[in-house]
């Protein structure tokens, strides 16, 4: 089975086949709230594609449209070549799996029963289902707790069970809504490793997150979504390079004042500047301004630290949208 997945994966990457195509999709909820505004995306087979945006950006709405739960107000969506209107009626739906934000299982069933129940719904042959359950229990470190009621699992285990259940049908496309939200760093890392393995198996993974570390580590490509619009789509490296450069300078103030910001601007010249709370982030794309900034640190008592560090997707998001992923108002110069 593993070899099969890898073969399919390599084949898909080579062909760069579009598995999910979203064309100028708009979604307006009753009451006039615009959740998505002319969103267009192409997601290729075998890649991990991340929708990165703050809460309320429209990520879940887009996913619900892709899984057939919501109708777009305008635009076209196709999955594996099938139009969204036909999606739930066609067998293509069996090649797609979905893990919503909430843990998706029946709490009063054991881990094994949950896998058996969802697997039965795909009408898999008994022996194949048994084999898949064993494989998934093993793959997600759930074998020891297979007889435990799902409600009694830890948060991380619950998330793993949700993902394991989504793989029972061996889907080509896996859609995960905020899979790492609410997890401790260790469980998050473990889950990310599991998702990376799935990529090796050739799965196309679309995930949404507002957690930068997750997106940065795992994504082949990232779409930054804000206020219902796709702001940009690219690889993590390209995004960072394009909008922040390799490194950024972070100045942490006790309390950032307009005067202090003006001083930084005068030093930074052509570099881009963004603020997030009492922090000022400065790109390093047009020269070395760190020394000048260090000079002002010795004079200004309200500067707590000046740090030169690698740029992150959080910085990228900040420079692109002027907002942090937490949603606070910021300034980009």
């Amino acid at each position: 089975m593993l070899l099969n997945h890898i073969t399919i994966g390599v084949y898909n990457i080579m062909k760069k086949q579009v598995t999910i195509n979203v064309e100028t999709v708009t979604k307006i909820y009753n009451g006039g709230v615009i959740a998505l505004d002319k969103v267009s995306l192409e997601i290729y087979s075998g890649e991990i594609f991340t929708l990165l945006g703050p809460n309320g950006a429209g990520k879940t709405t887009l996913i619900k449209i892709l899984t057939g739960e919501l109708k777009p107000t305008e635009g076209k969506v196709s999955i594996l070549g099938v139009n969204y209107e036909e999606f739930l009626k066609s067998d293509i739906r069996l090649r797609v799996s979905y893990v919503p934000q909430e843990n998706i299982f029946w709490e009063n069933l054991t881990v094994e029963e949950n896998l058996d129940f969802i697997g039965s719904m795909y009408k898999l042959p008994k022996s194949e289902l048994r084999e898949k359950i064993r494989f998934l229990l093993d793959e997600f470190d759930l074998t020891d707790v297979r007889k435990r009621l799902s409600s009694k699992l830890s948060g991380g285990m619950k998330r793993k069970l949700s993902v394991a259940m989504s793989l029972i049908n061996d889907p080509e496309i896996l859609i995960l809504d905020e899979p790492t939200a609410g997890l401790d760093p260790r469980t998050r890392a473990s889950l990310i490793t599991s998702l990376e393995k799935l990529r090796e198996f050739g799965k196309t993974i679309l995930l949404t997150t507002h957690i930068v570390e997750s997106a940065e580590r795992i994504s082949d490509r990232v779409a930054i979504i804000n206020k219902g619009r796709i702001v940009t789509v690219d690889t993590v490296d390209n995004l960072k390079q394009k909008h922040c450069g390799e490194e950024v300078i972070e100045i942490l103030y006790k309390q950032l004042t307009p005067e202090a910001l003006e001083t930084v601007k005068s030093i930074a010249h052509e570099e881009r500047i963004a603020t997030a709370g009492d922090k000022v982030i400065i790109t390093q794309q047009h020269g070395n301004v760190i020394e000048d900034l260090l000079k002002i640190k010795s004079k200004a008592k309200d500067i707590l630290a000046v740090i030169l560090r690698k740029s992150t997707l959080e910085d990228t998001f900040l420079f692109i949208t002027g907002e942090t992923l937490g949603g606070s108002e910021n300034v980009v110069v």
Partner: protein
Amino acid sequence: MLLFKIIKYKFLLAVRGKEFYIYIIGIPLIFMLIYGAMASSAYSSIEPIKIGFINNDVPLSYSLGNDTFNVHFGNDFYRYIKNVTYENSTVKMFEIVNVSSSEDAEKMAARLEIAGAIYIPENFSESLLNFSKAMTYNILMSMLAAKANEAYGEGNYDLGTRYSQAMDDISSLANVSYRLRVHFIGDPTSSDAMTSYEYLWKSLVNFAYVQVDLILNEYADYLSDTYNITINLNSTEFSTDVASTFSVEFDVIGGKAGTAKETFMQLYFSVLVPGQLTQSIMFGSTVAIYMIGHDIERNLLARLKLTRLTSSEYIGGILIAWGFIALFQSGILLAVAFALGYLRTIGTAAHIAVAVIALALGGVITAAFSMIIVSFVSERVSAPLVMVALIPVSMFIAGYFPVPNPIIGGFMGETITALDLLPWRAVIIAVRKSLMLSNVYSVAELVPDVTILILWTILYSVVSFITFSTARLKKRE
């Protein structure tokens, strides 16, 4: 097969949840214990029960020496029963309403205007008079024979002869036949009807013994005066085999007459136990709504749409699973009822099968009802609302409290009333007749009830399928 898996796992999901034990076992169990305790200690109500009285008794007269006595025991019984009070209370048991015919009584009972009606047949006076004469004969003959033997033994032949003549005089009383029979027309699912029925039994026996005492004294006086003998009745006690002497037939409204031979307690529990079983099944709605709502709220339903699961498998699986859940909860409650001594009548295997079908269909109806509700209202709102609404509704359905219940039609010889529009009413009636009154109803007589129940189940299942699949499985916002 997927359907079996859905049934299995939905069953496990229900019975593993604490909600199951709180709402659909715990609450009905508490009700059962409270009502059971009330029945064991005292009659639960001390309000006069409104009943009808149909008196077809024909008066008659009898002679004793030169005297003629007129009797109209039907009228006397009317006056007697009017003044019957609750035990240890001055509150009258009945408020008597005059009813002209059995048909009128049936209609009024079906509308819950009266709890039932006492029907006095034409031969009531004749039967009671014969019974009194027979009792008089038995008592006096043994007494006179002893006195005659005593007189002859003492050599007082004259006195002995007079006692013997007295014995000859009443010998004709031996050749009478009697069986004192009255009817009670009512709905056996009503606790008021059952209470009235039980008091009617007691009142009839007491009234008959009073009449026996009167006639016995009349005969004793007559013989004493005629034959100049002494008859001392002060220490006289008499008894008879109540079961073979008296009969209170329960004429079930809309059905065939039968004689309910249970004791009062059994009759009380035959209302209580099916009432609690049905209430428990109805309360299952809360858990069903919660479970279905869980699938919706947690996006499980959205996830399941991506599988091969069909709407009919999902809905059908839930409906059938709830049939088994209803049987499981009924099993628990019946075991408790049995342990407490509330369950005494065991019918035939066919009766038990009918009860099982009725209870399972009750579960299906409950699940279908829940799916219809969840089709339109979120489970967060509907679950508590349904629970609050079903508590009083279940009480009305069980017949614990009378509510206006107009007749709206008939079906296979059965009267259909407004309350019958609540499908669980069909469950309680079928369970009661099959499980608790199996000695009254044959399985064939249960066919109309089971047919009504099946029709309700089909109707609710179809409506739930249409509403739930349209509103929850196919709808996209």
